[in-house]
């Protein structure tokens, strides 16, 4: 093992090592002439994209096309090819945090692809919607893209928020901007992405929104790089100096004169050292504090992919990982180390060789055994080399047999993590994620990543292995299955059955609407319909069915759900089609046929929206005469034009006749007559009386108030008002208007068909006791007379009538009433 630590490099006081992850000879990646490519690697062990760099004239093998982007896994497998001929001239490529490929074209359009080459969508980055400017500089990071265009505008697009790109500052033309970097939102003070620029005059400009601040570097700066922690900035000056400062520029942490020209790449290796790479010399220089550095000379072009804890180095031969030696590895493998971990590892070596010293060593570190086991486990996780990893696990295991009380759960958990990381690192999958990265993104994002890589089975196995819900995995599998399977006519049935079989087998709860939507978007309508009916929510089914123009199905589902809102959703779709003339009324009605509920709601809507034309049409077709009649009557009531009223009434009465409703038909005719009569009366009275909208009773009453008894009586005859009602109208009108003389005359005119009690009452209603008393003697019922006299406190008269009745009880009653009234009066005087 001593050879292991011998290969480590020391930078200041920190040890670095390169681990080989994959050998790439014989892979598809080894065919590329790397020096001729623009490339970008995705973080967390993600894929790497290569595109022919048109600024360099390097001859490629004939298979390589210049307008294509090639995507490889770190293990050298070709994952996808992207044809960029529709994207215009691509100036930069990069990856977002979900392993989607971002291409920025010269005309400021961002195209987003899956790693397999499917274009997902595009964003146009411009100040105004019409004008786009050419890209001058651009920077792609894991959640966004920043563009400095030739007009000097800085625009920042967020790839995960649905909003248009934000315009930051505009940089005056005279300034030459050499490089740009981003302070991601999670590190910035403003909680928004901030843009860092370096200009030819040595300015370092930080922009957010319209705000900006300027610091001055010691010399003009040509390259910028922010550390993965977001706190420290490294820049390379025109004169070959590398400077590292805090982001606030209050402290220069490092200054190193490389005496070189501007490097091809300036990247961080973890957070403790910076790498400068000069492609021409194939030289990689790692610089640390106190003027320390390590030099790596390569035979050929290499590609650098920064990770949070190190750097992936890809050449035609290997994929390596350069990083700090983790503390646990250092403590175990350093020559002469006597840390508990190292001792345990050694003990295991002895144990394997059946050397009895094993037991002794363990006894020596007994008190630290628990720490030793933990160290070995962590070291095992950090190791890319499976052989060494295996030895470390064995050592931990040995230690555990000596320490019964060691937390079994912890041990099992670490083993699980090792297994998962090993699984995703295998050649076939090719995601060389480090332990630190795994801890940072968490298991859920790891599974997402696997799904993005279309490793559904592995993702599924992991979720099962860790007893996590696998519903989302299955859902994604189903979606991808639909998206990427062969498009043949008879495939729909097959795919549906396969998906349903899997879902049933695994008892998963998936969102059918999501899967069906994918099917629809893939142009597989039949499949989408087959899938959507499994969704338990009608509110999911209906909109999708509408979007596929399955109107009858949507209607039935909506009606079934009894949610009126869903029915309206379908109706509005149909009404829109009606409006745009893609369907006719006839089509609409035939679609609604026998769907009562939908018809009712449509009637309701048209009624409230006063769409009379359509309403009549629909009701007419349904032969709902009575409803049409009612509708017409409502129109009559709302209108104030006589002609319109009489005409509409005629229509209403016709409809009632069709409905065999003789009574209402007559009522309509009568109303028509009334309107005419009222109109004539108004003309006759020179419009001094307003009869408009008055009922028969009111009309008569108005005439009486105006002392036109003759016409009033004529109306009574005309509208067949009964004598009884007529008498009531007359006496109430007279009483209300205190036309006492008329009332009295009327009482004398004939024998009253309603008796004389009403006379008394109408007077009492007007609080006129005097007038009321006048009519009491005419009441036939003597008892009633007594009651009224008592009410009017006419006790003498009451007694007289009672005397005629010869009823002692009544007399007594009168007496009592008299006394109560006296008491009340006394009270009032007090």
């Amino acid at each position, binding site marked *: 093992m001593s050879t292991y630590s011998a290969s480590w490099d020391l930078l200041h006081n920190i040890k670095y090592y390169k681990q080989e992850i994959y050998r790439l000879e014989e892979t598809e990646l080894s065919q590329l002439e790397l020096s001729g490519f623009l490339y970008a690697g995705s973080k967390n062990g993600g894929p790497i994209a290569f595109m022919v760099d048109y600024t360099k004239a390097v001859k490629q093998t004939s298979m390589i096309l210049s307008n294509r982007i090639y995507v490889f896994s770190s293990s050298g497998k070709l994952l996808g090819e992207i044809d960029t001929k529709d994207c215009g001239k691509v100036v930069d490529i990069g990856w977002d945090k979900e392993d989607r490929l971002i291409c920025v074209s010269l005309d400021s359009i961002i195209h987003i692809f899956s790693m397999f080459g499917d274009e997902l969508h595009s964003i146009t980055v411009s100040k105004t919607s019409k004008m786009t400017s050419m890209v001058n500089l651009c920077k792609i990071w894991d959640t966004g893209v920043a563009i400095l265009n030739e007009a000097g505008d800085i625009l920042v697009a967020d790839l995960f928020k649905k909003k248009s790109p934000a315009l930051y500052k505009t940089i005056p033309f005279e300034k030459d901007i050499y490089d740009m970097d981003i302070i991601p939102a999670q590190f910035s003070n403003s909680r928004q992405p901030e843009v860092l620029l370096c200009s030819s005059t040595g300015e370092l400009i930080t922009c957010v929104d319209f705000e900006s601040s300027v610091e001055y570097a010691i010399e003009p700066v040509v390259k910028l790089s922010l550390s993965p922690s977001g706190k420290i900035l490294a820049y390379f000056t025109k004169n070959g100096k590398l400077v590292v400062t805090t982001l606030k520029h209050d402290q220069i942490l490092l200054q190193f004169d490389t005496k070189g020209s501007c490097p091809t790449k300036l990247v961080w290796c973890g957070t403790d050292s910076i790498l400068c790479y000069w492609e021409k010399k194939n030289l990689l220089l790692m610089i640390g504090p106190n003027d320390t550095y390590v030099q790596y000379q390569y035979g050929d072009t290499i590609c650098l992919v920064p990770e949070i804890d190190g750097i992936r180095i890809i050449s035609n031969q290997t994929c390596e990982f350069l990083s700090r030696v983790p503390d646990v590895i250092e403590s175990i493998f350093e020559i002469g180390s006597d840390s508990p971990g190292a001792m345990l590892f050694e003990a295991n070596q002895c144990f394997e060789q059946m050397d009895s010293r094993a037991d002794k060593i363990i006894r020596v570190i007994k008190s630290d055994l628990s720490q030793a086991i933990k160290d070995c486990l962590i070291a095992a996780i950090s190791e890319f080399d499976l052989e060494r990893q295996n030895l470390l696990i064995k050592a931990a295991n040995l230690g555990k047999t000596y320490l019964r009380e060691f937390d079994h759960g912890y041990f099992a958990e670490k083993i699980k993590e090792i297994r998962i990381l090993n699984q995703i690192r295998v050649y076939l999958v090719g995601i060389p994620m480090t332990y630190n990265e795994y801890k940072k993104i968490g298991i859920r994002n790891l599974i997402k990543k696997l799904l993005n890589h279309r490793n559904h089975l592995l993702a599924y196995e992991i979720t099962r292995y860790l007893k996590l*819900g696998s519903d989302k995995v299955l859902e994604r599998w189903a979606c991808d299955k639909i998206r990427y399977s062969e498009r043949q006519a008879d495939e729909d049935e097959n795919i549906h059955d396969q998906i349903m079989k899997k879902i049933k087998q695994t008892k998963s709860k998936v969102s059918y609407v999501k899967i069906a939507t994918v099917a629809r978007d893939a142009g597989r309508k039949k499949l989408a319909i087959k899938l959507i009916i499994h969704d338990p929510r009608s509110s999911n089914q209906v909109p999708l069915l509408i979007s596929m123009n399955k109107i009858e199905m949507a209607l039935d589902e909506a009606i079934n759900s009894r949610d009126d809102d869903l029915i*309206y959703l379908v109706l509005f779709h149909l009404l829109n089609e009606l409006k745009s003339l893609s369907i006719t009324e006839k089509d609409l009605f035939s679609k609604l046929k026998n769907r009562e509920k939908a018809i009712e709601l449509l009637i309701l809507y048209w009624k409230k929206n006063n769409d009379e034309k359509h309403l009549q049409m629909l009701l007419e077709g349904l032969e709902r005469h009575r409803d049409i009649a009612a509708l017409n009557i409502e129109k009559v009531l709302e209108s104030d034009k006589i002609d319109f009223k009489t005409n509409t009434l005629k229509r209403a009465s016709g409809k009632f006749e069709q409905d065999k409703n003789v009574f209402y038909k007559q009522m309509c005719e009568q109303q028509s007559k009334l309107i005419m009569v009222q109109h004539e009366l108004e003309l006759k009275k020179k419009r001094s009386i307003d009869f408009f909208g008055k009922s028969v009773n009111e009309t008569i009453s108005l005439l009486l108030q105006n002392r036109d008894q003759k016409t009033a009586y004529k109306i009574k005859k005309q509208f067949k008002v009964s004598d009884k009602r007529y008498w009531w109208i007359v006496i109430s009108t007279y009483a209300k208007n205190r036309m006492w003389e008329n009332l009295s005359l009327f009482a004398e005119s004939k024998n009253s068909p309603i008796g004389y009690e009403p006379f008394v009452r109408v007077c009492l209603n007007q609080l006129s006791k005097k007038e009321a008393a006048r009519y009491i003697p005419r009441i036939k019922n003597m008892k009633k007379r007594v009651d009224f006299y008592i009410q009017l406190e006419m006790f003498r008269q009451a007694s007289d009538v009672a005397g005629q009745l010869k009823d002692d009880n009544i007399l007594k009653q009168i007496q009592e009433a008299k006394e109560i009234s006296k008491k009340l009066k006394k009270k009032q005087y007090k």
Partner: protein
Amino acid sequence: MSLQINLDNLSSVPNLKLFRDFQTKELLNILSSINAPKGLVLDPALANPLTLIVDVRTLKKYAVDQLFLLSSKPFDTSLTHIVYLVRPTMSNMKKIAKHIHHSEKINSSVTETRRSNREEQGNETNQKRQRTNYVFLVPRITTLCRKLLEYSGVLGSVILDEYHLDLIPYDEDVLSLAYSKSFREFLKGDTSSLFYISRALHKLQSFVGQAPRLRYYGTRSKSIVEILRRLRRQDRREESSQQQSENSSSSSVIKPQIAEILLIDRHFDLISPLVHQLSYEGMLDELYGITDTVLELDPKILNKPRTGKKERIPLNSNDLLFAEIRDLNQSQIGPYLSRKAREIMGGYDERKNLKTIREFRNFTGKLGKLQKEHSSLSTHLSIAEAINKYAMEDQLFHRLMNSQLTVLTECEPCYDFLEELIYQEAPIETVLRLLCLHSLALNGIKSKKLDFFRKEIIQTYGFQHIITLNNLEKLGMIKKSEGRSKRSYTNWKKQLNLIDHEFTKNNGIHSVHSGYAPISIKLIQALYENSKKDYNEFIQTYFQDSYGIYTQSSKNLNEDLQESEQQNRNEKDIVLVFFIGGVTYSEISALRILNQSENLNVRFIVGTTDITNGDKIIKACSKKTSEK
């Protein structure tokens, strides 16, 4: 003074406090999410119900600086954040659109005038003056409203969202949707309220547990059970998938506090609301109208000086005295209150006999309660006096009560009185209530008689009532007489013992209408009371296939239920009786009276779309006076 019912009693079952607080919190969250001083525009139909959820002072705390009632007239305000809280109706959307157009017009004219001095001001200030409009639809966004806003061109200038206010606790035992339109909607074939009701019941159950049994009577009740089952099914599917991953705190875990939900379709008993209510609370509703548990009275009735404003009296069981008298027959109120008055006076008189300091302390402790009762007593005494005066002096009232009872008891018409009501031009609602009562109780009115009354009504009250009559006929509340049918009123009367003239003596539910017991409540009594009589056949002939019971078959639930049953063996099972299309105060009172009965081993609480009465039903059938 808070109008909310106090729900702090933790031992009350079901516990509605959490449920109400949840809805309050949702509103407050909405308000605090808009971090600026704002104007709140309320749908008049929501203003009163909202006072039962949150008071104005709390609104102020959440930066509601101005309150408006939504009307078609736009208002002017300097506030830049306007929050509309409205029911999702077409007319509301039209009003909001009008407001927004108005404010935009003003804004553009402001911009116009400012254009001249734009250089100094910069255009940012103009932008800031622009209003942000939030439209919260209660209880949800509907396609209809979204489309209407879109068609009026304002969808882009509002932030559309929803506030899920549904069942509001009116009292410890009454929940209402405060959805007064439900009856009118049924008339028009609009059944959107069925979905609202189902969702509301579903939500309630996520707080008080899934009721193991659903029982339904009437077609609309059946629909609701179907929707509820659908909702439960959806939940179960989605829940189980969630359980696998994260939270297992699903509603099915909550032990059911409600054992059964009984759904009653108002349509099956249209008679009872037509009959004048004579319980104290019912009478108050008939005479003065109670809006969302608040009675608004002319101060004169309470012997207070006129202020131009009406006195607002909250009517709920927070008022202990009111809780005692609300269910009594109005004729019993006078004697009861005078007895109570003597008791309270006696309470005050105690002070004369106080000797020790401890006795004094005890007395002062009681004093607060005494004073509270005293003030409540004087309020109700004044009201009772006013009611009594009305009942004694109004010459029609007495005769109306008599003829109602004649129709219901003898099943004989009182056409002469009905005729006189029309001649005296009594309120149209009174006339139509009695006419409908005739038709329903007598199983139709003879064709000639019916034509006569219809003509008298149209000629007297105006042609617009042809619409009212047509609607009432559509609902079957007025019809021409046919042969006897098994579903007729006489059959109900015979089977369910609807009439009892000795109601004062028997303390039964007949007291709520002075002799007549609501059919709806009598049916409920028949369903739950241990009785030898078998109603099955009778119910079968009436409801045919639109009645039944649905039992939740889930295994866990039954176990839970058994457990909880064992725990509260002494507690009665709770049955939530939900009335679709409204319930009257008399019916609620009758249910409360039933709760006192020893023959029942369940306790009823009430849920409803709204509180109704005969006048409201007739009005719902009349042509709405168009608002412009």
